[in-house]
């Protein structure tokens, strides 16, 4: 993975010093709350319900065992012994006192980590496919260009005060695992028939209050122009994006207002003088950064193993884990393994300091000391020998990191919600826990099959509820927490936004609602048909009827809004 050189190290250290000075000036009253706010946000620091929340970047999903150990130590010594992995390759602490943050950032800098631009109205942490470099369907390894984009966007002098936050995602495989179409800029790297790397560029996607899928602004942008082209897009947005209303300030609103043709015309006009200029990425720079992402020293192995096969045939629990949590690898005899952070009774994405230390040990023992964070809020050991899977399973199980539910109903994507977040309208973790409690029969979960259940505690949509097969959105009505349900959303190559099934529900009703949706699916499904495909085939009406009964047929049912 990428390692800092003297330049990176000096810049991150300077940032820590800068933030320490800013914190002191704020404490001394030289900076008002309003003036300090964007400065702390650009260092990942939110004021939350109980304490500040500190968001650390895990750039394009890559993290080392050594880094994870430091994150564990910080959780233990500065927080309450746990941390939370988000849907955007970030790790969040919830209980670090404000005055301690500069020291925590200094400690992170020592292991080449930072919280730079993890919040605020600037270019955020770049997200990508958690299987970059190892997926059999990968066409282009996204990590070198993602790192080049990370550096370009870091302290960009023109784009630190954009109208609103700006998220870039990149994938380079046949299957999009980075949901690029719901980002401000989405990049799909692919190759032309000569093997040269091109980018399909989407712009103006985003979830939140007004969920919109991105539109294609460039079908075939040569990789060397990525930075200059994005500079053109973001300059047009910086100058023309709305600043009168934060809910209308994302680039998606500008693209919709202008239309993609007119927006493209403006970007092309801006780009005309930038194209082939100094921002053009050189072969030497791509080669330099790519050298950090060479394959680890894989052993030459058969793609089968007698011990593994024997365990597979004799142990149903192991077989299930392999089926759900073990993923194909481009190298024979290797697999990627998802360590599930979705154990029953636990907030999705949460991990304790002890678990982090243990996972670091696992990464060193089984995966060349590297891991990935996934946008599904799990951790991935990217390079595990097939023959070691049985012992890894046993160890992961002992750590409660082996729920065989990856991709299933209880692999819930969930934001911190009203338990922690100041923005939330409703709690989300108790809903997730109640659903995990209700559906703890693995046979049933496996029978239901692939199902993305996403929960957001407010319309900012950190839980990506719009693209869940079942999406749950917490809403506030007269100071009470209610939950609106959508179905039919999906991520991937055929990303779609879910449809609202009707009036919202009380928290206590949510497990029953999910039960009814699943019963309807089971009664209507065709062989091998996933929940979401049944919804697409039959439409949402049968599901409405099962959930609302006769009320569904009444006009404009409005009981709870």
């Amino acid at each position, binding site marked *: 993975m990428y*390692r*800092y*050189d*003297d*330049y990176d*190290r*000096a*810049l991150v250290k*300077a*940032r820590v*010093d*800068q933030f320490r000075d*800013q914190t002191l000036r704020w404490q001394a009253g030289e900076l008002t709350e309003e*003036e300090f706010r*964007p*400065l702390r946000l650009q260092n990942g620091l939110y004021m939350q319900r109980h304490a500040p929340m500190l968001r650390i970047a895990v750039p394009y999903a890559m993290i*080392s065992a*050594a*880094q994870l150990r*430091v994150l564990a130590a910080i959780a233990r010594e500065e927080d309450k012994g746990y941390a939370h992995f988000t849907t955007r390759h970030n790790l969040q602490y919830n209980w670090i006192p404000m005055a301690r943050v500069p020291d925590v950032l200094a400690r992170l800098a*020592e*292991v*080449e980590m930072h919280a730079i631009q993890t919040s605020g*109205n600037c270019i955020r942490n770049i997200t990508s496919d958690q299987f970059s470099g190892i997926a059999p369907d990968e066409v282009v390894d996204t990590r070198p260009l993602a790192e080049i984009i990370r*550096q*370009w*966007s*870091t*302290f*960009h*002098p*023109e*784009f*630190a*005060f*954009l*109208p609103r936050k700006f998220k870039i995602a990149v994938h380079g495989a046949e299957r999009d695992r980075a949901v690029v179409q719901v980002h401000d800029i989405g990049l799909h790297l692919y190759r032309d028939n000569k093997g040269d790397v091109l980018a399909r560029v989407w712009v103006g996607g985003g979830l939140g209050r007004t969920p919109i899928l991105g539109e294609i602004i460039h079908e075939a942008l040569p990789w060397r122009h990525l*930075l200059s082209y994005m500079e053109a897009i973001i*300059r047009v947005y*910086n*100058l023309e994006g709305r*600043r009168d209303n934060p809910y209308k300030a994302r680039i998606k609103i500008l693209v919709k207002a202008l239309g993609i043709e007119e927006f493209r015309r403006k970007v092309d006009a801006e780009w005309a*003088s930038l194209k082939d*200029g*100094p*921002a053009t*990425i*050189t072969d*030497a*720079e791509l080669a*330099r950064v790519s050298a950090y992402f060479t394959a680890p020293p894989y052993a030459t192995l058969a793609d089968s193993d007698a011990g593994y096969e024997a365990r597979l045939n004799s142990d149903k629990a192991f077989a299930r884990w392999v089926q759900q949590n073990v993923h194909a690898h481009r190298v024979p005899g290797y697999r990627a393994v998802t360590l599930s952070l979705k154990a029953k009774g636990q907030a999705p994405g949460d991990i304790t300091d002890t678990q982090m230390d243990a996972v670091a040990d696992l990464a060193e023992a089984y995966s060349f000391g590297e891991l990935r964070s996934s946008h599904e809020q799990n951790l991935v050991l990217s390079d595990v020998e097939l023959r070691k899977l049985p012992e890894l399973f046993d160890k992961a199980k002992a750590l409660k990191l082996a729920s065989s539910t990856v991709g299933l109903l209880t692999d819930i994507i969930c934001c911190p919600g009203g338990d922690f977040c100041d923005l939330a309208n409703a709690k989300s973790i108790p809903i997730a826990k109640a659903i995990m409690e209700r559906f703890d029969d693995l046979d049933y979960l496996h029978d239901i099959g692939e199902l993305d259940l996403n929960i957001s505690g407010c319309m900012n949509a950190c839980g990506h509820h719009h693209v869940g097969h079942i999406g749950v959105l917490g809403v506030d009505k007269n100071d009470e927490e209610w939950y609106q349900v959508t179905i039919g959303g999906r991520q991937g190559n055929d990303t779609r936004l879910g449809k609202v099934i009707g009036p919202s529900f009380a928290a206590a009703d949510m497990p029953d609602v999910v039960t009814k949706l699943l019963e309807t699916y089971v009664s209507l499904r065709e062989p091998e048909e996933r929940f979401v495909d049944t919804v697409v085939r039959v439409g949402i009406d049968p599901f409405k009827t099962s959930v609302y009964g006769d009320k569904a047929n009444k006009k404009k049912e409005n009981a709870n809004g």
Partner: protein
Amino acid sequence: MAEILKNGQVHSDNWQVLHLEADADPAAQTVAAGQWLVPFNVWLAQRDSLSARAGEIGIWLSPADDLNAVAAEFGAWPLVAIDFPKFTDGRGYSIAWRLRNHHKYTGELRAIGNVLVDQLFFMLRVGFDSLALDPKIAPATAQSHLTPFPDTYQGSTDNPDPLFRRADRDDATRGGARS
């Protein structure tokens, strides 16, 4: 008399900024004696009389101004300013970048308005060379915040070359203490 930062040094400065009342007629606005930065529409409306006051009249831009029209008159002013109505409004950075790079403005470019110390590095990078700080900030204090970073990754007006075109990073020590 106020103090500003110009090319990194504290200077005394007599320029005043003329703000139009809402709905005021730019043609009827009086521009008193002295050095004034006037809104571009006041300049357009009173060009004949104002251009006679050589060295005394500059303009300040707001985001709505047409930079092509502005660029046609660069030679008339000793100074162009860009207003930051609020420090979180980042349009001024891109306006400055365009003036310097698309329109090749080479004269003095001043940031005015809600100009705070933690923006100065960015402002200097995109092409400002003079900074009229928010009145609550002493220019001497601001001086110590002009270069919070020892280097830059990306190009901008100050140096169009990104780090990868300026430095041989293969020679920079790789990897550090990972503890």
